[in-house]
């Protein structure tokens, strides 16, 4: 069945934070949920019948995985917890305790968990502003994101990652951190190459980098 949630910024409208609660970082955001409102699958493919059918298949696979884990299958239990962290069923602050119950994670599993927890942390930071933040607040946010990046906590969700690096680059430009700015620009160029709408943005950033390297700064 079809549900459309509209973020209206009308104070009397309920559930105005539902997008962030369900792991969304921007619009449009399409997911399959169960009757409790738990996200079972996020739609990232093509927006046509075939694409939606594929995501429905992913949602069904989660339901099947849950049944298998509940029947006692150890491997399924581990996979379920990892998936629940990814889908936001388990809060980042509770993830560590749940993961300890699973025993050792492979490097790939650990990397996946790190990315998912970073997605959740960045989304929470964005959601902490109820109105449009000031330039100073955005720079402060950029500083926090730069600290996350330094600690190896980089989001993996593409839209979140783009916002993550854009704000870090603004912070890097303000503190004349050429290496950090360049790292952000390299990452965004790889993500946005072939996107004609990003051409002007990337060209502007290239010029800013040249100016920083020449010692010009802002």
């Amino acid at each position: 069945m079809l549900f459309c949630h509209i973020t209206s910024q009308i104070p009397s409208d309920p559930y105005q934070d539902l997008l962030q609660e369900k792991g969304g970082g921007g619009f449009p955001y399409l997911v399959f949920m169960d009757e409790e409102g738990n996200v079972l699958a996020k739609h990232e493919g093509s927006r046509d019948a075939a694409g939606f059918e594929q995501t429905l298949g992913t949602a069904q696979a989660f339901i099947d995985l849950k049944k298998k884990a509940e029947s006692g299958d150890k491997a399924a239990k581990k996979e379920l917890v990892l998936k629940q962290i990814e889908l936001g069923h388990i809060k980042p602050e509770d993830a560590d305790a749940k993961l300890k119950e699973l025993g050792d994670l492979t490097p790939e599993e650990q990397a996946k968990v790190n990315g998912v927890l970073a997605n959740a942390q960045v989304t929470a930071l964005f959601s902490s502003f109820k109105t449009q933040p000031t330039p100073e607040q955005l720079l402060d946010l950029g500083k926090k994101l730069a600290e996350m990046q330094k600690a190896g906590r980089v989001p993996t969700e593409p839209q979140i990652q783009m916002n993550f690096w854009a704000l870090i680059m603004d912070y890097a430009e303000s503190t004349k951190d050429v290496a950090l700015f360049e790292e952000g620009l390299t990452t965004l160029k790889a993500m946005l190459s072939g996107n004609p709408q990003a051409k002007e943005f990337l060209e502007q950033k290239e010029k800013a980098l040249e100016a920083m390297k020449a010692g010009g700064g802002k």
Partner: protein
Amino acid sequence: MKWSLAACLVAALVWGAAPRLQGEETMEQKKEKKLAEEFFKKATWFTDYDKAREEAKKSSKLIFAYFTRSYSY
């Protein structure tokens, strides 16, 4: 302080449009415009989260959720 286009774009994407100017539509009017979009007429859409979950329980169906916004319409 020179303000970055990047941060403006991110701010607009994440937090939406600038404060309302005189003569601009109200948030309520923007929401009404959103609800009048063509796709709502093509199928039965729930816009109430509580009712959607109730219906999903009753019908034993999954919910396909489309998150959108009206404030920067």
